[in-house]
C-alpha cells in the first residue's frame, strides 16, 4: 500500500512538473505573440483622443513601451512572479480588480452550462444503453450531431433574434438561461459522442459477457460495468471539455451581451490593453492546465491499472 501511494505521488509530481512547464510556455508565448499584433494602446488612445505625436511619445515612454521587448518581458515576469499583474493601460485600474468584477458572471454561466452538459452528456448515453430501443438513443445521437454541426454562436444569434427580439420572452442582454442551455447542449453532445463510442466498445468486452452470465440486470450491467470502464477513457478528455466550456462561455457572453471574461477580453484586445489581455490569457490557460492535471490525477485513482504504474 505504501509503495502504491509512493508510486502515485511520484507520478503526480511528474504531472505537476509537466504542467508547470506548459504554464511557463503560455506566459512566454502570450507576451510575445501579443506584441506582434500591429499597433499598441497609445495608437488606440491617440485615435480616440487625437493626441499629438509628442504626447503619444511621452505616453509610450511613461508606459515603458519604448523599451525593448526583452526588457519589458523581464520587468513583467518579475511583477507577475510577485503576484502583481499591473494596471490596465486603458482604465488605469489593477487588472485583477477588473477581472474580479466579471469573473463571477463567467463562472455562473460556465458552471450552469457544465452542469447541463454533464447531466445530459452522461445521462442520455446511459439511458440509451439501458433502453436500447427507446427514444433516448435517438436523443443521444441528436445532441451529438447537433454539437458537431451547429456552432454555438449561430444558435445564440438565432435565439436572440427569435426569443428576445421577436417573441420578447427573454431579455436581449444579460440573460443566463438561454446561453447556459445552448452551451450546455453543445458540451453534452461532445461528452455523449465520446462516451457512447467508448460504451459501445466496452459492450463487446469479454467481461460484459461474464456480467451477463452472472444473470445481472441490464441496468446493473450498464451502471456497474460498462459506465465505469467507459468513463476511464472519457475522463482523460475532461481537460478538453473544460476548455470547450471556457471558449464557449466567452462566445456566449459576446452574443448575449453578458458582462464577463469574454466581453472583457474582447474589449482589451481591441484596445491593445496588454496587461489585461496577458493576464486574462494566462489565467484561462492555467485554468485549463489545472483541469487537465485534475483529470490525469483522477484517472490514476479511478483505474487500478494506472494507479500501480
Amino acid at each position, binding site marked *: 500500500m505504501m509503495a502504491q501511494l509512493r508510486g502515485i505521488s511520484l507520478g503526480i509530481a511528474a504531472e505537476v512538473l509537466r504542467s508547470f512547464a506548459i504554464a511557463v510556455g503560455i506566459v512566454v508565448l502570450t507576451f510575445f505573440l501579443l506584441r506582434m499584433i500591429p499597433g499598441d494602446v497609445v495608437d488606440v488612445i491617440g485615435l480616440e483622443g487625437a493626441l499629438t505625436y509628442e504626447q503619444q511619445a511621452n505616453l509610450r515612454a511613461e508606459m515603458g513601451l519604448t523599451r525593448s521587448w526583452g526588457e519589458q518581458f523581464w520587468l513583467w515576469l518579475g511583477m507577475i512572479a510577485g503576484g502583481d499583474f499591473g494596471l490596465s493601460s486603458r482604465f488605469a485600474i489593477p487588472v485583477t480588480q477588473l477581472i474580479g468584477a466579471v469573473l463571477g458572471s463567467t463562472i455562473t454561466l460556465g458552471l450552469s452550462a457544465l452542469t447541463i452538459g454533464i447531466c445530459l452528456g452522461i445521462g442520455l448515453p446511459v439511458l440509451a444503453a439501458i433502453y436500447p430501443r427507446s427514444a433516448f438513443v435517438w436523443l443521444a445521437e441528436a445532441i451529438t450531431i447537433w454539437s458537431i454541426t451547429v456552432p454555438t454562436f449561430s444558435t445564440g444569434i438565432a435565439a436572440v433574434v427569435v426569443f428576445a427580439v421577436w417573441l420578447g420572452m427573454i431579455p436581449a442582454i444579460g440573460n443566463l438561461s438561454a446561453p447556459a442551455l445552448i452551451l450546455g447542449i453543445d458540451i453534452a453532445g461532445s461528452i455523449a459522442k465520446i462516451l457512447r463510442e467508448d460504451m459501445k466498445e466496452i459492450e463487446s468486452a469479454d467481461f460484459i459477457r*461474464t456480467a451477463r452470465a452472472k*444473470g*445481472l*440486470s441490464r441496468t446493473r450491467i450498464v451502471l456497474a460495468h460498462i459506465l465505469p470502464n467507459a468513463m476511464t477513457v472519457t475522463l482523460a478528455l475532461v481537460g478538453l471539455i473544460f476548455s470547450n466550456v471556457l471558449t464557449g462561455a466567452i462566445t456566449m457572453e459576446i452574443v448575449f451581451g453578458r458582462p464577463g471574461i469574454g466581453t472583457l477580453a474582447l474589449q482589451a484586445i481591441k484596445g491593445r490593453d496588454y496587461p489585461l489581455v496577458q493576464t486574462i490569457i494566462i489565467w484561462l490557460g492555467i485554468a485549463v492546465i489545472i483541469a487537465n492535471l485534475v483529470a490525469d490525477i483522477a484517472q490514476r485513482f479511478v483505474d*487500478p491499472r494506472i494507479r500501480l504504474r
Partner: protein
Amino acid sequence: MTESMSLLRVESLRVAIQAQTGLVEAVADLSFTVEPGETLALVGETGSGKSMSMLALTGLIPVGVAATITGRAMFEGRDLLCMSETQLRALRGRRIGMVFQDPAQALNPLMTVGRQIAEAVAAAGGPKGREIQLLDEVELGAVPGISRRYPHQLSGGQQQRVMIAIALAGDPSLLIADEPTTALDVAVEARILDLLARLKARRSMAMIIVSHDLGVVKRIADRMIVLRNGRAVEVGDTTAVLTTPKTAYTRALMACRPTLADSVARLPTLGVPSPPIIEKRAIQSSRVLLGIHDLQVSYPGVGTLAKPVRAVKGVSFEIREGEALGILGESGSGKSSIARSIVGLVRPSAGEIRFDGALLPDTARLDRSLRRRIQYIFQDPFGALNPRLTLAQLVHEPMLIHGVPANETTIIGLLEEVGLNAGHLSRLPRELSGGQRQRVTIARALALEPELLICDEIVSALDVSVQAQVLNLLKDIQARRSLTLMFISHDIPVVGHMCDRIAVMQDGLIIEIGARDCIIQQPTTAYSREMIALLKR
C-alpha cells in the same frame, strides 16, 4: 422415462447468423443430452459451432449479432429457447454457471475480484460473505488479501479460479466451460482441469466443456461430441471415441496433432491432399550460424522507481547451419526476448550475439544486410499483416525495402511455394483464413532468402488441422532451402515434431539443452519431467 431424467436435452438446434455475405448456418441440426452429474465435451475446430451453440442456449449471443435460433432445449423441464431474456437471466448464474476462455479479459479490470464474486452471489440471491467460502472452494482462500485484489494483480490461473468462483456463486446444476484452459500454460491447465473435476464431483453438478484440445477432453470428459461445420459427426464415450474413432474426421483430428511417441515426417491434414514428401537433406555442416553467449535482457519495471524485470538471465547456445533448434518454455520464460534481441527489436543488457562469426551490434541499429539474412515470423498472423495491402504488395514489400529485384513471377513463385497461387495476388488479408495469413507471413520471410528463420509461436493461434498444414509447409521449405530454424513454442509435441535439438527455458534461463530424443525421452530436470509427464497423462 429417460427423457425426463436428462438435465439438458437439446433437439435439432440450429443457429443461423446474418453475416455480410448472407445467412451463415453456424449450428445445423445439433442434438444431444446432458445427464445430471456427467461431463460432456463439445470438440471441434474454429467455426465448428461449439461455442455458438452454448451462447445460443444461454441467450448470450453478443448484442448486435443477428441470429435466428430454432429447435428445442429442455433444461430442468423448461425450454431455454422459448424463454424471454428476463427468464433466461434468472437462470444464468443460478442454474447455469459459465466459465470463459480468456480470464484476463473476462473479469472487469476496475472491480476487485471479491466484489465481482459478491455481485454474482447477490444476483443469485445468496447470502452476504459467501464469496469468502467460494474463494476457499476454488483454492484461493490462502492467498493473502485475495478478495481486495484487482484482476491484473493475479496470475492467469488465479484469474480463471475467480471466474470459476463466479460461475459457482448460484450453486448451478450445469456448468458450461468454454475453452477454460486455452489461454493458460500447460501446468496451470492441468491444475484448473483437476479443480473443475473435483468441484463437479463434490457438488454433483453436470458440466459441458467446450474445447478444441483432445488432450483436455480426454482428461476430463465422460462423453464427447465431435462437431464439424455445426453438425455432430461423432458422439460417444470419451475413451471409446478416442481409442476407436468411427469417423474419418475424428481420426484426422486426432492424427494431425504431433505426438511425442512416434515421429512422422509429415502430419496428416484434413481434406488437403499432402504433397510428396521431400526428404530432409542430412546436415553435415558444423558451421555455427548463430552463437549466443551469456545473453541477458531486462525490461524497465512498471513504475518510476521499480526494479527492472530480468527476462533473460544469461543464456548461451549455438545453432549450426541447417539445424532446427526448438526453444521450449511457458509464457514469461524469456524465449521471445532472446529472439527479439537477435533481430535487434530489444536491446540486450549484457552478453554477445554472433551471426556467422560476426558480432552483432548491441544496439537496435542492425545492419540491413544482416537483417535480410535473419527473418522473423510472429505468432499472430492477424496483426502481422497490414490490412490495406494486397498479398502481392505484402510479399513485395520486404524485397522493396532491401532492394531485391522482383517481378510478378518471383512473387507468384513465392506464393506457390507457401501453397497459395496467382489468384491470391490481389486479395487483402481479411479475405484469408488464419492459416493462409500465416502462409503469407512465411512468404514474406522467404522473399529475402534468409539463412536463419525465427518462428515465434507461429502455430499457437491456429486450429490443429491448420497447424499441421503450416508445420508441414515449414518442414518442406526447411528441407528444400536448407534453412536454419529457431522454433519457439510452449507446445512440446510441436517442438518435438519440428526440431533436431531442444532448449528448455524456465525463468529466463536455459535449464536443459540437447538432442530432441534425449530431452523428450530422458529429461534431466524435474521441470521438463513434469511438463512431459503432464502431456503423457
